[in-house]
């Protein structure tokens, strides 16, 4: 067997990307290699639980965080339509992302110098010069919706537009470009200082010259005008990590009823009032509901007998047993629902959640419901409708079988190993020349 290679995985500081990379790392480890994780400041602890070494980047001059302000600000932004969020959320978020990329550059460069990886897996939305300059292949994982890779036939990234809403595409794309222009200028200048050329605005991360891995399974994929080069772009048909089996808790009633998981991610759990409104509706339905309340679990009292609230679930193992998954359209959640053939009720509030909500509805793998724009009857009808749609369920189960067969995490790991092997052969040939 070839000697074990060290692969540094650097996911962005979000659970979706992090856990998606855990799935790939599990497979790399199974193949005999040594995956290690580079963590953004504050985002540690997730990978160690799966038995991977973690290296946290430190920020020398990080300012103290006013959390009340952050939450208040975004609570309001999350109520807006994608177009309005450009100014209130997307613009400031890109500024924050660029700030982080600049702040971690030096610690990242030093860390890569110490780790000496054979390859770097970047699951992020922005380029880090230290990675481009590391002298080893880097692989890009596109954890977001397929819209992150633009195309004439693909709705603009973060727009929440459907295929048949072309009239709105240009207006959104123009406003997006204007909104992120300042962040992009700063980013371009920073890259230039590091001897790199920035991708053309409004893109912050171009494709890897070695390998790009996309999650989007066939059933929701867009019909691109310019096909992606199959040697460099590989669709994984999902990328789901291995989790230990989950035993649902015993409920105080409805123990034989269908299981419904509700999770809006750690950020989406912050609107406790909205969650309580949903739970009041759940209490009236003949199902068991698991609700991810994240950090706010203790805020809930008088929980209905058919509802169980927790701050964390081993999501894939729960989705596997669920009849319906109510989520925010986070790409990882959406792909997990598809991987297990479970319909999605998507209630988006930001970023590519809007894109996935639109895509779920137009490809018939779920429904979209406005996070705030619903009555009790609407929510009930959406849940009942999806639980009763046997045609959709059958189609999803058939698709899930295809996705299992595609074994996305294994494919990803094998392709990464291939890139490393090609690079070392190339290096060997160069030194022999």
């Amino acid at each position: 067997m070839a000697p074990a290679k060290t692969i540094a995985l650097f996911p962005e500081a979000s659970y979706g990307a992090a856990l998606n990379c855990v799935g790939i790392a599990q497979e790399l480890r199974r193949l005999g290699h040594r995956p290690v994780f580079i963590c953004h400041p504050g985002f540690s602890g997730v990978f160690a639980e799966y038995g991977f070494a973690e290296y946290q980047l430190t920020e020398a001059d990080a300012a103290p965080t006013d959390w009340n302000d952050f939450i208040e600000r975004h609570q309001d932004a999350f109520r807006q339509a994608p177009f309005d969020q450009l100014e209130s959320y997307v613009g400031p978020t890109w500024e924050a992302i660029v700030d982080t990329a600049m702040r971690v550059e030096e610690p990242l460069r030093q860390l890569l110098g110490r780790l000496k990886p054979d390859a770097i897996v970047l699951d992020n939305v922005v380029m880090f010069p230290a990675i481009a300059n590391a002298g080893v292949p880097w692989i890009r994982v596109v954890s977001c919706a397929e819209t992150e890779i633009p195309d004439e036939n693909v709705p603009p990234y973060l727009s929440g537009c459907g295929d048949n809403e072309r009239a709105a595409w240009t207006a959104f794309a123009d406003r997006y470009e204007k909104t992120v222009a300042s962040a992009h200028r700063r980013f371009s200048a920073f890259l230039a200082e590091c001897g790199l050329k920035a991708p053309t605005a409004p893109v912050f991360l171009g494709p890897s010259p070695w390998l790009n891995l996309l999650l989007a399974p066939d059933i929701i994929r867009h019909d691109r005008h310019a096909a992606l080069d199959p040697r460099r772009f590989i669709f994984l048909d999902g990328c789901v990590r291995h989790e230990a089996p989950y035993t649902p808790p015993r409920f105080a009633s409805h123990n034989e009823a269908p299981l419904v998981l509700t999770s809006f991610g750690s950020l989406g759990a912050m609107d406790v009032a909205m969650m309580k409104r949903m739970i009041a509706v759940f209490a009236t339905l003949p199902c068991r509901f698991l609700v991810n309340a994240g950090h706010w679990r203790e805020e809930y009292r008088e929980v209905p007998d058919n509802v169980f609230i927790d701050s964390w679930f081993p999501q894939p193992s729960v989705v596997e047993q669920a009849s319906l998954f109510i989520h925010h359209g986070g790409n990882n959640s959406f792909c997990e629902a598809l991987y297990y053939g479970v319909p999605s009720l998507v209630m988006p509030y930001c970023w590519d959640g809007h894109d996935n909500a639109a895509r779920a509805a137009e490809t018939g793998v779920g429904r979209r419901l406005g996070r705030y724009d619903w009555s009790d009857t609407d929510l009930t009808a959406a849940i009942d409708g999806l639980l009763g749609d046997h045609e959709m369920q059958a189609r999803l189960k058939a698709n899930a079988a295809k996705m299992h067969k595609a074994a996305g995490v294994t494919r990803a790991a094998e392709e990464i190993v291939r890139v490393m092997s090609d690079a070392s052969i190339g290096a060997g040939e160069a030194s022999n020349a």
Partner: protein
Amino acid sequence: MHGDGRQTRTMTPEPKRTNFRHVELAQKILDVAGERGMAPGERLAEQALASLCNVSRTPIRKALQILAERDLVTADAEGGYLLAIDPVATARLEDTAEGEGEGEIYAAILRDLSAGRIAENQTVAALQRRYDVSRQTVQNALMKLAEENLAERAAGQQWLLKHFAISGDAAAKSYEFRLATEPLALTLPEFKRDMPAITALRQSMLILRGMNETNFDRKLFDRTDYDFHLLIARSCGNPFMAEALTNHHRRRRASPPAGHVNAFRLMQSNIEHIQILEQIERGQMELAADLMRVHIQLSQSQRPRLAGRGVPPAFKLIAR
């Protein structure tokens, strides 16, 4: 617990149920068998068990019947029972199975308290109404909760259920408490090593060490985890420390699991248990205490409580 059909049982006699004390005794029999290195097929003599467990033969017989119902012992043609399993490879007996009277109500109260379905202040009558069972059943369940420090009598007819012990913060507070006490317990001057118990426990831990992430036996791990920490509590040689730690571990075991722990972490935890046990066996108590400190700290989850694009860092939650 509305609408699940159990209301119809109110006026009818409650079904035959398993007394939780007999289940505890059945577990004790398995523990004794493990510590004595008994193998499948060996005879379990009632009189010997009675004297080893400090009880009369009648409860031993009932406990053996429970073990027989669960196929852990088999009736011998000549009378009595034979061990049917390897006790060190067997998970702890479940004493809260559905339909088992006060055991079920005890578990339901804990589940509902933990899930935020019922308030901390309760009366027997209110619990009777909710669970649709006799006054005696509720009282027995409350007594069992009180024994494990999960409930206490309050003014008048009130009972106070101790939500703090099973709340979201309980796991973090429990680790804090254990970090302050368990390493200390190992270094107390009169710590006494229980070699038969250590040997049996190590057998179970070695079985677990042979498993991998996909076939890891969580229930067997739960048993070794509980037995291991309890062994340290009762061996420490100071009755006050022993009582505090024993109560804490019993309550920890009785509470619904807080959060989900990966098999990988449990496998690591098992290895840490083995390492500590080895140092105890060798009499290297300071080293065992240091390893215990590391073990407890590694067991705490460090996941960020909130994360997302543009979310500032350092918003962390330590809990499990």
